[in-house]
């Protein structure tokens, strides 16, 4: 069967894809929806933002990535014991987010403070916009309700695996165009590389444990949805905080 016929949105698969076919389909499910191409990301990479825009980004981003270990913990709780490698991956990912080094959200707050906002403002959930609230809620719902392979597909493949491509584009201008110091932007530098490995191991879990046509189809649907959620979240930052500034000019 041609690959295109297996991955068209809305089509239900009736046969199991090989791991190579499934991997390609997962990668295709993200294409065209990459957050690196959303308006806020483009403006960031083009050196068009001001520090207050980054401050608003941090005040939103905290509420999306801050609970990432919580999302993973929900997945961990309903991953069966026999899937030891999947459980180990989830636990290690949680450990790295929270304990292995500087807590990742503390690095985000360090960047936020360099942008002129405060830890209190970043942590205050009233400062996120409605789309960020929707993304956070979607992450919790997927983590709590879906099969562990499907949830891993959504959150690790659909969302986390995009991080290196986003931050590799956004990190250089932070130093060169916006004038931040290396300490200020360690959050981005760290995630460029660590999420390469998280993303790859996430793919392996999904390829190994989404082992029925139904689980593969559900994984593809939620990877697509996750990519759309992250794109919408990133676009909304531009619409909410950047576009009004441009209109005033």
């Amino acid at each position, binding site marked *: 069967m041609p690959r295109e016929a297996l991955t068209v949105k809305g089509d239900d698969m009736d046969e199991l894809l090989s791991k190579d076919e499934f991997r390609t389909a997962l990668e295709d499910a993200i294409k065209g929806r990459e957050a690196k191409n959303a308006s806020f990301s483009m403006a960031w990479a083009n050196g068009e933002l001001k520090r207050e825009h980054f401050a608003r980004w941090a005040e939103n981003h905290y509420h999306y990535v801050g609970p990432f270990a919580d999302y993973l913990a929900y997945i961990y709780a309903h991953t069966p014991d026999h899937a030891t490698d999947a459980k180990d991956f989830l636990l290690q990912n949680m450990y*790295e987010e929270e*304990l*292995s*080094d*500087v807590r990742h959200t503390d690095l985000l707050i360090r960047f936020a403070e360099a942008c002129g906002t405060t830890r209190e403002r970043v942590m205050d959930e009233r400062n996120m916009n409605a789309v960020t609230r929707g993304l956070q809620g979607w992450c919790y719902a997927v983590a709590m309700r879906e099969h562990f392979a499907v949830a891993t597909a959504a959150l690790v493949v659909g969302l986390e695996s995009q991080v*290196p491509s986003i931050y590799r584009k956004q990190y250089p201008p932070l130093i060169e165009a916006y004038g931040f110091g*290396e300490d200020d932007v*360690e959050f981005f*530098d*760290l995630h460029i*590389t*660590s999420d*390469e*490995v*998280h*993303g*790859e*191991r996430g*793919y*392996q879990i999904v390829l190994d444990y989404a082992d029925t046509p139904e689980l593969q189809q559900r994984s593809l649907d939620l990877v697509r949805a996750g990519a759309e959620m992250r794109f919408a979240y990133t676009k909304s930052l531009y619409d909410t905080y950047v576009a009004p500034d441009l209109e005033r000019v």
Partner: protein
Amino acid sequence: MPTIRYVTSGCAVDFADGDDVNMLRVAIRNECHVPYRCASGNCGTDRVHVEDGHENLSAPRRRERERLGDLLDDGWRLACQTYVSGDCSVTWDPDQTALDERATDRSLPDAVNERLARRWLSAEDTD
């Protein structure tokens, strides 16, 4: 099509012209058995010696410079921190462990212990 040669495990992996790919991610995906632990540039378990193709590797990142120090000048790189844009060959010791054992120590880092103590223990307990 450029090729990464993981000489120690006998793997050779091609990637598309124009791409630049993470050396450790490619090794994991293709089961090339480069040892690694933290994948964040802290522990140094995934250090590889570059035999050929230095010019096709990304500039060393901050954590890599801090972790490897003088080893960088001797041709070592951290696979997790290195992006490859053309042919290269790397070797390593299959039994190598972390450069900084503290980074892979199962016990919690000092800062975390202090944070947990503040959260869970009374002032008298921590005196």
